């Protein structure tokens, strides 16, 4: 069936390369001829804050830059506290891709707020949506620093999950990142596709 478009929330914390992730993905969908609206609004002025990008592609003109809660097809999150913030926005058949990486909130560090009693990974696992949880610790590689390149790992994962052409996606990575980082990025991308293949097979 022809894909008429999807609504994606991309979440994480500052410094995780969320802008690059959404930038690479936007180039891919533009090449496929989709209309796009991408809002990188949350987290624009503060360090250590959450980052939230609303990414919409469609074969029809897109109206709202923000996705209504309940209209989200994919939550792609690089930090699991942030995953929890958007789980309720997913459609019933929406899918969550979440890293288990966690940057403890300042409010918890300093005792202004209690830590959540339960493990965040467990809460995500309990969600009724289909979910893929990736622990970067399990996929460390001597070739690249996974904690810094989770964005491209996740791009590979997402592309595999959606059945997209890896050649096209890698070409976009090649064109978009500085020359000296191309190789590391491609290895990170391929790592993402491998993890996805294993996860999908196990699913």
């Amino acid at each position, binding site marked *: 069936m022809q894909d008429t478009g999807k609504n994606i929330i991309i979440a994480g914390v500052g410094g995780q390369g969320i802008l690059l992730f959404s930038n690479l993905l936007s180039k891919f969908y533009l090449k496929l001829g989709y209309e796009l*609206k991408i809002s990188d609004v949350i987290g624009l002025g503060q360090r250590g804050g959450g980052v939230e990008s609303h990414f919409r592609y469609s074969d029809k003109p897109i109206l709202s830059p923000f996705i209504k809660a309940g209209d989200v097809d994919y939550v792609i999150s690089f930090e699991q506290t942030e995953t929890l*913030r958007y789980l309720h926005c997913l459609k019933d058949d929406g899918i969550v891709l979440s890293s288990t990486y966690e940057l403890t909130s300042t409010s918890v560090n300093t005792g202004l707020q209690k*830590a959540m009693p339960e493990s965040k990974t467990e809460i995500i696992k309990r969600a009724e949506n289909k979910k893929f949880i990736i622990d970067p610790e399990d996929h460390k590689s001597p070739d690249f620093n996974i904690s810094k390149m989770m964005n491209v790992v996740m791009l590979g994962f997402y592309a595999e999950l959606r059945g997209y052409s890896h050649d096209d996606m890698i070409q976009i990575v090649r064109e978009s990142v500085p020359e000296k980082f191309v190789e590391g990025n491609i290895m990170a991308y391929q790592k993402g596709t491998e993890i996805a293949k294993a996860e999908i097979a196990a699913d």
Partner: protein
Amino acid sequence: MMNGNEAVARGAFEAGVKVAAGFPGTPSTEVMDYTHQRYPDIYCEWSTNEKVAVEVAIGASFAGYRSLALMKTVGLHVAADALGGAAGSQINGGLVLVVSDDVGRLAGDDYNDCRHYGNMFGLPMLEPGDSQEAKDFMVKAFEISEEYSTPVILKLTSVTCKTNSRVVIDEDCTYEAKCREKYPISFSKVIMTTIMMKAKGSEHPKLTKCFNDFPAHYKRLTNNCNDYDINQLELNGKKIGIITAGTPYYYAKEVLPEASFLKLGLIMPLPEKKIRELAEHVEELYVIEDGHDILEKNIKDLGISVIGKELWPKFPEMTRFTPDIIEEKLVPGAPKRTPIKDVPFRLPVSCAGCSHLFIAQILRKNKIRAAADVTCGLIGCFPHMEAYDLQKCMGSSIALAHGYNVAKDNKENFVAMIGDGGFWATGLAGLTNLIFNNSQSTVIVVDNSCLAMTGGQNVASSEFGFNYKPENKLDIAKVCEAIGVKDIVTVDAYEYDNLEKSILNAVNAKTNSVVIVKKPCVTKFKLPKNTPSYIDQDLCVKCGKCIKVGCLAIESKKAQDGSVDIVINQDICTGCGLCSTVCHKEAIKQ
């Protein structure tokens, strides 16, 4: 694909802008960066502050060229006097202020709304809803400015600035900055209002030649804007009618595809005929606007009743519209989604290795009370750091401390901390004031060689910038000396002991003093990192002193057995060593 900021820069190019002056402010800082990078024909400058930027633009406009001034709404407060001077006066080259509201407090400002200035000064205002409109309205704003002899405000929001969408551009468009010298003179409104009020002698030709009938211009625009296609009337269903502008139009249109709409591109003055046409077409008329209830009040002033804040109460109940909020009130039976409870919130944190952390630590340790400025250092005001007692607006801390000290008969030394950005913006005026009024205050100037919080733009003492020339770089110490500061010392932020001694000496000296703390911004200048520190868990007693330092790299982590460890994030730590100075167990090692 362009975000709103890129689109505005493109619009400036297409409009043939000659001069762009501004002051950085999230979310619209990038307008200037893109203009400078992509359109080298346009003269760009980061001005000393917003008031200066508007004055530069006014001068360029009088010289006959299209000019723009860029700032966020809190910056327009600073520039309001300059704008008031230009409002209602003769305009040669179009004069457009690009002003961004932080709707929803997404960038962390207060709940300001620049449209009040439109009402106060009688200025036309335009509000785009996406990037295409941001580009097109920019061109339109200049046309209106020239045709109706008035400054125009293009209102952006954090959403329009930071949303990417497709923009159709004319690739063949060439840059042309035309000179329009229509009026040989242009004065502020005082002279013109003298004539309007028919004061004695106001018929004299020397006065009448200065006359600019600005109320007539505005009235003409008020009539003509009923025919503007940017004020888009969509007569659909007869039940619900919505008057809106900017991105809220798209939220409402998505939720209520059957409703009738008036989407205002020109939000001031209002197209009365179109509003009445919509009002007659529908049973219920709503106004959906982010920010304050300005459209609502202006529409009600026309004698037309609309429903707005009675249905959607504004701050603090709500800081911005979303599609969800509209649906909840206007779509019966819409499903409601509830977020997971008690997900911890995030406070802003300083970058690891930031010089501000060193200063905050020394002030806190020595129980020195101090005022912070608008700088990355203001993070020290938040409850996780508790380093400062007072903080207001950009450039204020020096005068705040001075006021405190004179009120307390100089018996306490309440210290001022200010960044180099705030120092040059308006802090210098506070320092001058402090000297000639015989203050004994101490000022700590944090010189990180740029305006760090907005992403590292140049200030007068930076060694880079759009118009940088080494011989024109200003030196903070020399300026302080010239103003007459008695005691000036410059220290490196990372020399902890020396920094502490310098601050204590300055505070204890019974004179005015400035401590300049130098360290380039770690993020902007990508300073080389030292070996990261780590916490020896066998020695750590979990007292939490290191967490109080306020560094992004220091976290509390739940261990497998449920106990909580304090750890240093190795990817974030720069190895600056500040946290090891507070650990009495010497558990922090490198």
